[in-house]
């Protein structure tokens, strides 16, 4: 079922890409609408800054627009646009250095019904009084303590639910490297978020 959905999505992308390559700007707009929420999550979780995210997304889609005629379809559009996004965000973060200005997003109210959120904020946790804002702050701070490469992998795997193989294609490193980056990133995060974890 999931595979079927993915195939139809890829087919839909292929048609939109072909139309965009022929100069149909509406088709490109449709691709922007479709991928902005996913790419927003990727870039925001890597930068922890809303303004940077907005600027970077403009750069990413502008680059994609300029390059779409050269997109040969060897990978899916999804992998292609993700690769552009990860590379441009990593380049930006390297330039930005340590001048981090965290600005947080609104949190969807759906989180309040998420069992994992309930588990963290209630019950046996010593921080059961923790509020949503505090949790968000701590998670962001923990993410920012990771290196850019580790943060990218954590974002794609833990937050966005991509598979190791997909992350490998996007980042251009082996699956083994993806797994190893995840392992070390999780270990670091455990230290930063020790008091949030369920006992």
């Amino acid at each position, binding site marked *: 079922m999931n595979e079927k959905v993915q195939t139809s999505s890829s087919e839909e992308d292929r048609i939109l890409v072909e139309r965009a390559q022929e100069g149909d*700007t509406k088709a490109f*707009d449709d691709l*922007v*609408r479709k991928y*902005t*929420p996913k790419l*927003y*999550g990727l870039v*925001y*979780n890597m930068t922890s800054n*809303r303004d940077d*995210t*907005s600027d970077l*997304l*403009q750069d990413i*889609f*502008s680059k994609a*627009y*300029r390059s779409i005629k050269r997109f040969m379809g060897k990978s899916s559009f999804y992998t292609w646009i993700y690769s552009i996004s990860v590379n441009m965000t990593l380049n930006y973060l390297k330039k930005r250095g340590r001048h981090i200005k965290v600005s*947080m*997003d*609104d*949190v*969807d109210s*759906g*989180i309040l019904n*998420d069992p*994992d*959120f309930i588990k*963290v904020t209630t019950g046996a946790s010593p921080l059961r009084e923790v509020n949503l804002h505090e*949790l*968000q702050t701590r*998670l*962001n701070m*923990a*993410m920012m303590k990771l290196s850019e490469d580790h943060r990218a992998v*954590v974002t794609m*795997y*833990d*937050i*966005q639910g991509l598979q190791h193989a997909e992350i490998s294609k996007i980042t251009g490193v082996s699956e083994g490297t993806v797994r190893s980056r995840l*392992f070390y990133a*999780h270990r670091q*995060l*455990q230290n930063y*978020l020790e008091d*949030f*974890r*369920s006992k």
Partner: protein
Amino acid sequence: MNDHEDIQKLIGLKRYEMPPEGFVDDLLIKLHERQRAELLHQSALSLAWERLITYIQHWSTPQWSLATATATLMIAAVVAMNSHPSEAPMAGKVVIPEGHQLAVSYFKASAPEASPIVFDVSHSGTKVPIREIDLLLGNHFHSGLPNEVGIVRAGPPAKGSPSGTFSASPTIMTGSVK
């Protein structure tokens, strides 16, 4: 549940963070503005390029090629007509009309004043090799052409001799008779 799964679930809560409302529409508006700006910028550059190409192509059209070639030929002709024979040595033989004499004057490079020296060329009506004229000059100066001779050319012809122009160096002489 192991530690890694715990952390994964905790970090996974970040998926609830959402872009501000209307973000996608705003992004599209900004993107369209950027695309237009880039298009205009490209247009300005491509327009300048196009003008340059057109300008170059304009010069290579047949009518302009013909005009350019004609102008070039005319300029070349004028230059050739005005150029001094001594600077453009000509054929190695001259035709002396029958009964005519060849008047040659030589100029010192330092004091270019003409002093016509008349040679009797007996090969009237035939082509005279320059070498013979050179010999005549050589005989006249006995020890060959003096070093100070810069140019030897035909001066005003002696009575009944043809007009003509010659040029020579101490070792080479060329010329023509009109």
